[in-house]
Structures are given as C-alpha cells and as structure tokens.
C-alpha cells in the first residue's frame, strides 16, 4: 500500500463526544474498506452507552450554545467552513476512498459541503425574521412569534453522501442553537472523522456537535426512547421498519421527528425547512396599554 520502506501508520479512529475523542465504551471497532476492497481504517463502533454519554454532553453543550447570540453562532459556523477549507485535500481523498468517485466529483462535493456551511452561517441571525412573525390579533396586544431551538437532536446522516449529506444534516440543526448527536454513514465514516477533527479545532462549544460511528440500527433505538433527547432526524434511516419503530419510540416522549427524505438532492441549495424542523415557535402576547 505504501511505497519505499516506510511502515504504514494504520489508523483506529475514535468517536467525537463532548469535544474529546474517546474510544467506544464497549471497546469495539469495525473495519472500513474502500470501494476496491482495500483496508482503510478501524472505526470505533459506538454502543448505547456511548450514545447516552453523548446525550449528556449534548445537553451541556446546548445550555451554552443556545444562549450564544445569533451573530456569534453565525461566526462559529463560518469558522467551521474556514477550518474545513484548510483540510480540503484530506476531504477530497477521504471522499474518493469512501465513495469511489473521481477526484473531480470529490472536489465538487467538498466545495459544496464547505459552501453549505457558509450558507447556513449566513442564516444564523436571519432565520428568525423569516420563520417568526408579528401576528394581527383583535385586542390591545402586541403579539409576535419567534422560533427557538428545540434542544438535543439525534440525527442519522445519509449513508451515501458522506460529507455533503452529513454537513447538510448537522448545519441546519445547530444554526438555531440546538445540539446534535449525529451517527455518521456506517460504510463511509472517514469524512465524518475528518470533520470532527475540524470541529475540535474550530470554535464549536464542546458537546454541541457529537459524532458517533457505528450501526444506526443498534444506537438509534436508545436515543429515540431517551427522555432527554428532544428531536430525531431520521435522514439516513432507509429501512422502513426501523424508521417506523423509531417514530413509535419517539412518540413516547413526544419528540419532533424529521423523516427520511424520499429522493434527497444534497447538491441543490436547500430551503429553511430543515432549520424549521428543529425549532419551537414561542408566541408572546404583550399588552400595549394606553399610549
């Protein structure tokens, strides 16, 4: 695999929880291979307990991230894009290995992923103007509605689009102030690992974004029934039976659920629908008094 006499540095990647890189509590790993069947790396196989730890970190992260100003959240997202830009070559290699695509396609996907972060960064201090409103009411009240982050979101990244799809799931969740626990593509997790290294060196609050690798079918049920998780994003769940059972589990604690899209076009510029999916609308009635 490696020319000359150098001994290859074989990698065993870890999880990204609470801003740190722990091994799976279970000690398990699995191998990922590229499309030619060659060994790429060992990947940590997260267990339910890792998911539980991630929820605790995400809750801690949410408590500070949701209080950050919208302007600041935008800056932090932009900073993620900056750090990703510096690692562009690595992302392109990762995507080529993972998806077996050409250098050109991998480059396009990386560019789009970075641009997507910038796109959402711009929305940080604008989405509430679009999703919020002042409401006409019959009475002496000033009545307005504003979107607020829903809390801790457990998400499954799409299985095929290993970087652009992943970013397109994470960014709209965190831009409004939520925390996320995202399970990366099981067969192509390495771009997600590189992303976690970018996140660790940008200004993301520890615990705000947690990336797990492993089998969503194993990890998601405990997150779906977890009482301290507020919403699910089932984008990467393609098995309809698992999808249905997760929705049923989620109903037990009245979680918001974003279903798996039917034919996702990640390269198309999105709408605000993913941002809106993980917000709660707060409506305020303010007495106007006599002026």
């Amino acid at each position: 695999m490696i020319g000359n006499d150098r001994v290859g540095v074989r990698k065993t990647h870890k999880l990204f929880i609470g801003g740190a890189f722990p091994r799976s509590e279970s000690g398990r790993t699995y191998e990922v291979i590229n499309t030619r069947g060659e060994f790429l790396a060992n990947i940590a196989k997260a267990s339910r307990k890792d998911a539980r730890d991630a929820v605790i970190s995400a809750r801690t992260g949410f408590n500070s991230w949701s209080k950050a100003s919208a302007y600041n959240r935008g800056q932090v997202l932009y900073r993620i894009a900056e750090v990703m830009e510096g690692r562009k070559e690595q992302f392109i290699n990762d995507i080529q290995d993972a998806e077996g695509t050409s250098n050109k396609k991998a480059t396009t996907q990386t560019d789009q992923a970075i641009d997507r972060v910038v796109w959402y960064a711009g929305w940080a201090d604008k989405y509430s103007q679009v999703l919020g409103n002042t409401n006409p009411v019959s009475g002496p009240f000033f009545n307005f509605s504003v979107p607020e982050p829903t809390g801790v979101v457990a998400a499954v990244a799409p299985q095929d689009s290993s970087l652009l799809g992943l970013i397109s799931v994470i960014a709209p969740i965190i831009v409004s102030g939520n925390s996320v626990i995202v399970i990366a593509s099981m067969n192509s997790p390495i771009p997600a690992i590189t992303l976690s290294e970018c996140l660790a060196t940008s200004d993301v609050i520890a615990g705000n974004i947690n990336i797990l690798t492993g089998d969503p079918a194993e990890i998601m049920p405990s997150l779906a029934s977890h009482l301290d998780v507020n919403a699910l994003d089932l984008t990467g769940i393609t098995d309809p039976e698992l999808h249905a059972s997760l929705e049923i589990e989620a109903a037990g604690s009245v979680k918001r659920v974003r279903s798996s899209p039917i034919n996702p076009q990640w390269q198309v510029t999105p709408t605000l629908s993913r941002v809106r999916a993980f917000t709660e609308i707060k409506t305020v009635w303010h007495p106007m008094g006599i002026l």
Partner: protein
Amino acid sequence: MSSLEVHPAESHKGLLSFLAGLPGVDQVGAEARAAALGTRSIKKESKIWAIDMAISMVDLTTLEGADTAGKVKAMSSKALHPDPADPSTPSVAAVCVYGDLVYAAREVVGDRIHVAAVATAFPSGRASLGVKLADTKEAVAAGADEIDMVIDRGAFLTGNFGKVFDEIVAVKQACGTAHLKVILETGELKTLDNVRKASWLAMKAGADFIKTSTGKVTPAATLPVTLVMLEAVRDYYQETNTRIGVKAAGGIKTSKDAIKYLVLVNETVGDAWLTPDLFRFGASTLLNDLLLQRQKMITGHYSGPDYVTID
C-alpha cells in the same frame, strides 16, 4: 473553656504516642487499590440493589448562604419521597442543614428520617469552643438528632492533637443523645497519613461517624481517602468491637461514583457496613442521578433531568 485548661498537654501523652506510632499509609498502594476496586463491573440486578441502597444512604444536603426555610422544607419533602411518581423508591437517610433551619426540616419529616445539622462554626471551625458548644446545643434543642462537626484543622496541622481531641469530647458531650459525625476535611489535611491520624483521633474522642469533608473545599471526598478512613474504622472495630460509621461527602455526583464507594465499603469493612446506620453519602446532586438511573432500570429507557425535581 475551662475544661481545656485543666487538661494540660501531659494528659494526652497516651494519645500522642499512639498517634505517633500509627504506621504510615502507602499512598501509591491506597490509590491503586481504590482505582482497582473502581473498575468492578456491576451487573444489572446488583446495580438495582446498589442504587436503592445508595438512595437510602444519602444525607440530602443544602448548606448555602441563601438557604431559606422554604427551600429546606421542599428538600425535606423530597427526602421523604425522592421520586413521587414511584412510591417504591426508598427515603433518604437524613436531611443535612444549618442549625438555624433544623426546625423547618423537622416540621416536614417528623421522626420518619433523621435531621442532621452542621455545627461548630461550619465550615471553617474558626471560633472559640464556647461558641462551638452553643452552636451544637442550639441545633440539638431545635430537633437535630445528628450533629456534623468540623475539627480544628489549624490545631491539627500544628500538631496540637490534644486540643482537637478535647474539642471533640466537649462537642460529643454537648450533643447528648444526638449522633456525632466528625468532619476531618481531608482536603486540608493534605496527606493520607494525616487522614489516618485524624480518623483515629476522632474515633477515640467519641465520634459515631467520621466524615470526609465539608463539601466547601476541593478535593472533597475521594476513593483513596475514604479507603484509608474505612481501614481505620475496620482496625478500630477489631480493637474495640465498636462499629464507627463513615460518611463520604462532597464531589460524589453520579450513580457510578456512588456504586464505587459501595464496592469499597464492602471490600474494606464488609457488608455489615452496608447500611445507612454505618455509611452515608453527603450529597445534593447525587440523588437526582440515582433517581434517573433507577428510572432507567425500571422503564428500560434513559431518563432526563426534566423528569426529576430541581433541588
């Protein structure tokens, strides 16, 4: 005050030579032993048992300058019924408050659980003996049946063990029938040798319990410190056939930590100590985590902080 003057240093000769003769603690060994016991894997059934045992050992504590009678009453209700949604949850062992709020706790808990009061100029202990005794007597008169006193660390660290001893004896006397827990404040004693010395000193002076910390100093309770105290308790039992209790207080926040302490107790002094009469946790946030883990055990899904009361 005068009791101190009629006990000149010579009267403590026996005590002083005993303390000087105590073997030193192997710090590396104690830490390794505590760490090894902390890695035990606890299976589900044992965990359910351990969580209920830990809940029943909690001294639910509030020791803030901002405490009010209302807060103490709310906490006392929680002490009686930690999880109102599940009546099978055991009550905690006691509530622990400042002396002037004992009445509020007693009003709510009646004689169903103990009421502990911190006394003797808690947490620093920097007051004259007269003040400390008055503090103790007032708390007992208000209805406290357990007194948590602090030792005079300044006197201890300057080698004035006799003074520390006499103070404990005097406070024990002032307690009357109330149980006396002696807080060593191990975080300020610095070495495990000192922890062993202070443990023996407190037991010889009449402590019913020895307690690690006030919770106001970091580090508070740690596994190695508790191990050394438990060993002292074990040796004292072998010598006198009297069982002294141990209270680990401060810094124990998760069920996992609490279970480590239970393992430590079982392995050091044996299961005779696995009762609220002989082992306690001084804690405020620990109880909520125990309740969350208990809910997880019973319902099968993870619970969240929205499902337990705040304070």
